[in-house]
């Protein structure tokens, strides 16, 4: 019987330890998401401060969801912004959704960069971007300031490039991300 109890505790204790593993949640504290549109006559920058996001780390990887209403982007010209809403079909698809997957973020040894696989839902279409580099600018005990970017193609999202005086904008639209995430840990 003693032998049996010995075996029992020997096997059960690590199992209990595993099951009580940490589950880290991330909340998007503040952000600035910008885009740059290039036209032969001028370059336009637009930005939104209204993104919301959450992240969860479990089982060796992390998943994040960030969403931002298309109408919150401001390029400094409201008429142009309304035209942007039209071409991106924001009336039908009012949110830009970004699902990101990364390897688990080691908080004990903060990384200098994070590589994420992104799935961007925009204008009714989803496009994937692999291994997008996000730089860790600052890492406090429970906060991470992350910047990065990727270039999206208007064609990939089925967006007809807007034109001025018959000249369309470039298909490539660089997107800039500047985000501060807060980490919350809960034992599960």
């Amino acid at each position: 019987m003693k032998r049996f109890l010995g075996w029992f505790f020997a096997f059960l204790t690590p199992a209990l330890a595993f099951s009580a593993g940490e589950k880290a949640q991330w909340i998007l504290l503040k952000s600035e998401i910008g885009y740059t549109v290039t036209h032969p006559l001028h370059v336009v920058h637009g930005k939104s401060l209204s993104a919301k996001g959450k992240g969860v780390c479990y089982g060796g990887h992390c998943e994040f969801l960030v969403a931002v209403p298309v109408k919150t982007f401001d390029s400094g010209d409201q008429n142009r912004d309304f035209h942007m809403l039209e071409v991106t079909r924001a009336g039908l698809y009012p949110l830009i959704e970004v699902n990101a997957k990364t390897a688990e973020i080691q908080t004990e040894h903060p990384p200098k960069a994070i590589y994420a696989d992104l799935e961007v839902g925009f204008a009714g279409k989803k496009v994937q971007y692999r291994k997008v580099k996000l730089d860790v600018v600052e890492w406090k005990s429970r906060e991470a300031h992350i910047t990065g970017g990727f270039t999206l193609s208007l064609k990939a999202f089925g967006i007809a490039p807007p034109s001025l005086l018959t000249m369309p904008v470039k298909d490539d639209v660089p997107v800039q991300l500047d985000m501060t995430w807060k980490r919350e840990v809960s034992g599960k």
Partner: protein
Amino acid sequence: MVLTLAFCVTAFGAPKANEKNNQTDAQSGLSLGDLGFSQQDIQGDPRFQKDLETRSDMLRIHQTLGVITAIPMTTEFILGLTTAGNVSNGSQDTTLHTTLGLTTVALYGTTALFEILAPKPKGLKPSGNTGVHESLSWIHLPLMVVVPLVGDMINDRIANHQPIGNLGIVHGAMATTLLASYLTSLTVMTF
């Protein structure tokens, strides 16, 4: 021994089961609904999209007609300088200048109508270059009414063999302001 093995399997199986539960939790925790957006932010509005498309179509026509209008307007200005010279030399023929002027007014009016009648989204306030573009219309729109009226007064005086006085200078100065403000209004949209 069988019991021991059963315990081991149960014990080692537990993390996997928990992991699966965590995944489910995580997936449900990462839904749009949990991000705190209002229903208005999340739901599409086909009517709003339709209005945006109508607006864009009308503004595209406004843009095209605006560029087209600049051609007769500039030609009319140059023709006005020539006509003024001819009139000062005793000519009474202002027909071409008058006809082209009326054509310009008609084109200008049509261009303006496409902007005025385009659906205005709620909360639209002119800003940036569009704001400047719209402000300049407060200069060229009234001038587009006054300049032809003064031109008509000059035509009447010429037809009645009366002296034009300063009306020609006033007409010219207003036409210069009109053309300058109109072309600036057009150019500012390209920056």
